[in-house]
């Protein structure tokens, strides 16, 4: 039971990391990034291609792939997203939807739909004894890294100057400019950073999940539900909801398997009834 709960947290780690990226991008730019799942997939594929074609190992990929995807994000923001942000947010939603289709099919065309092999890094091949039970080392690693990452992003956003600027720019972009902060210079990297987070989650997923072009497509919809539960734009809420949903679905699989797929959505409906803006959401979600 304890082990199952732990296990749910590992699953939740991916929801949390993806929800975090979505929330950062949304909180800062007001963009709901439908292509987030596609970038998660690209993260996993990127590390596969690096390993398969260039022999680059997992650890290097973990640094390089998110960085590269972050740059792609920067380019996207500069070239397209920026043009649409002054308009209704729906346009960026639709834009990223189209983008997701393109990215997914490009990978499909190049590598096919079959899952690609990606081994666990040798260092993390074993199991670790956690006192109460032993557990695969890689999963412990994933959980630890995601917790650290979410905490770090949270800390960066709450405690550092960068985070302060991001929060300030989100709250009052115009005034923040008037106080001498180049908000635009921060927006692009933040978009890139959100994308990099998706890529990072993808690299982490490669050794334990099927690496194929479709891996992000269904996941992202569940993550949307997670983010709605947590409160869109609420970073803390999104991350917490991510871990919580992981936990709930692991236990759901165990006790009520028939409901395990719909559970997230039922939870979402319940939360919406009770708190229409999500658990940690602000009221601006409401009309």
């Amino acid at each position: 039971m304890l082990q199952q709960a732990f296990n749910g947290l590992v699953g939740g780690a991916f929801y949390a990391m993806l929800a975090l990226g979505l929330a950062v991008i949304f909180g800062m730019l007001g963009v709901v990034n439908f292509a987030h799942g596609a970038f998660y997939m690209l993260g996993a594929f990127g590390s596969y291609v690096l390993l398969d074609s260039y022999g680059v190992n997992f650890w290097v990929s973990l640094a390089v792939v998110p960085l590269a995807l972050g740059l792609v994000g920067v380019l996207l923001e500069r070239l397209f997203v920026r043009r649409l942000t002054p308009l209704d947010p729906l346009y960026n939603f639709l834009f990223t939807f189209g983008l997701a289709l393109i990215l997914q099919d490009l990978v499909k065309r190049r590598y096919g739909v079959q899952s690609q092999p990606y081994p666990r890094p040798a260092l993390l091949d074993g199991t670790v004894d956690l006192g109460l039970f032993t557990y695969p080392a890689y999963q412990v690693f994933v959980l630890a890294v995601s917790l650290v990452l979410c905490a770090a992003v949270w800390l960066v956003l709450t405690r550092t100057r960068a985070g302060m600027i991001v929060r300030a720019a989100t709250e009052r972009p115009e005034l923040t400019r008037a106080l001498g902060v180049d908000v635009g210079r921060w927006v692009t990297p933040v978009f890139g950073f959100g994308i990099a987070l998706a890529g990072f989650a993808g690299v982490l997923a490669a050794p334990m999940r099927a690496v194929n072009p479709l891996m992000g497509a269904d996941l992202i919809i569940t993550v949307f539900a997670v983010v709605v539960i947590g409160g869109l734009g609420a970073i803390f809420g999104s991350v917490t909801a991510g871990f919580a949903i992981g936990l709930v679905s692991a236990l759901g699989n165990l006790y009520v398997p028939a409901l395990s797929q719909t559970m997230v959505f039922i939870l979402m409906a319940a939360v919406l009834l009770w708190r229409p803006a999500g658990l940690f959401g602000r009221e601006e979600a409401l009309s």
Partner: protein
Amino acid sequence: MILSRLAARPLLLAAGLVAVLALPWMIYPPVALDIICWALFAAALDLLLGFTGLLSFGHAAFWGSSAYVAGLLALRAGLPFPLAVLGGALFAAVLAVPVGYLSVRLRGIYFAMVTLAFAQMIYFVVNQWRDLTGGENGLQGVPRELAGLDLSDSFVFYHAALPLVLLGLLAAWRIVRSPFGRVLMSVRDNPARAQALGYPVQRYKLLAFVLSALLSGLAGGVFALGHGFASLESVYWTTSGQVVMMVVLGGIGTLWGGALGAALVVLLNDYLVTSGFEGIGIVTGTIFVIIVLVFRRGIWGTARHLVQDRARRPGGPPSAAGEPDGAPAPTGVGSPV
């Protein structure tokens, strides 16, 4: 302006009617049937997106659930084709009540995400409830008959279905050009103002949602019976995405544009299926991205814009299509959605 409108409308109407009647001669009847079904679906979605300012990304739930219910009514209860379809549409409308109730309170993008999630929930239910739905095998072997007449030939079925679909399109048009539709547009443009005028905005949105679901269900039911089965695909989120794409391609808030978009997407798909090109998503995705970036009015909207004088009232999406393509939003004021 009034005069040219009066002259243009019957002309366009006649042209549309001729096109629709000639369709199964010009293109393969099952494809023609697909086109009119999707056209109705797109019009139903546009009722929400273009005229109420709500982007539903979960309309597959209504199209698909109606497909299953219509299929079951024909298969298990032996209902004749039009009754089965109406039953499906009614079911979709009923389903839309709780879904709409929960979603309609949320603004633009939040609304889109929540409808998407609800639709995914319906998808899982249909997938798992195998005894009723056939699960991933789909609901197969749905008969099509009317008063003892076998309609399984698609050319015949097209003509049997056409009145229903036209009725649906007419209904969509009527709703848009009704007192109710006027309120919807005012809600889209300025909900606070509509409220101050005494309109219960949420309830109007909910009714619009239900009507849109009803018409989507009508389309989905015809589609299912036309194919002789209902499949999981019909409740999958890609279906929701596809219909949004059709509306955006045709032009948000143009009603007929959706039909045009539907025809183009269906024909393009039909072509790509045998073209040997493996990246259908690349083609459709690229077209979609270009439309969103460059021709936000869509095909119909751009054409109408070119034909009409600028000063005339543009029908438009929540905020952007009112201004020139690519122009930034008006100074200072955020969009109301």
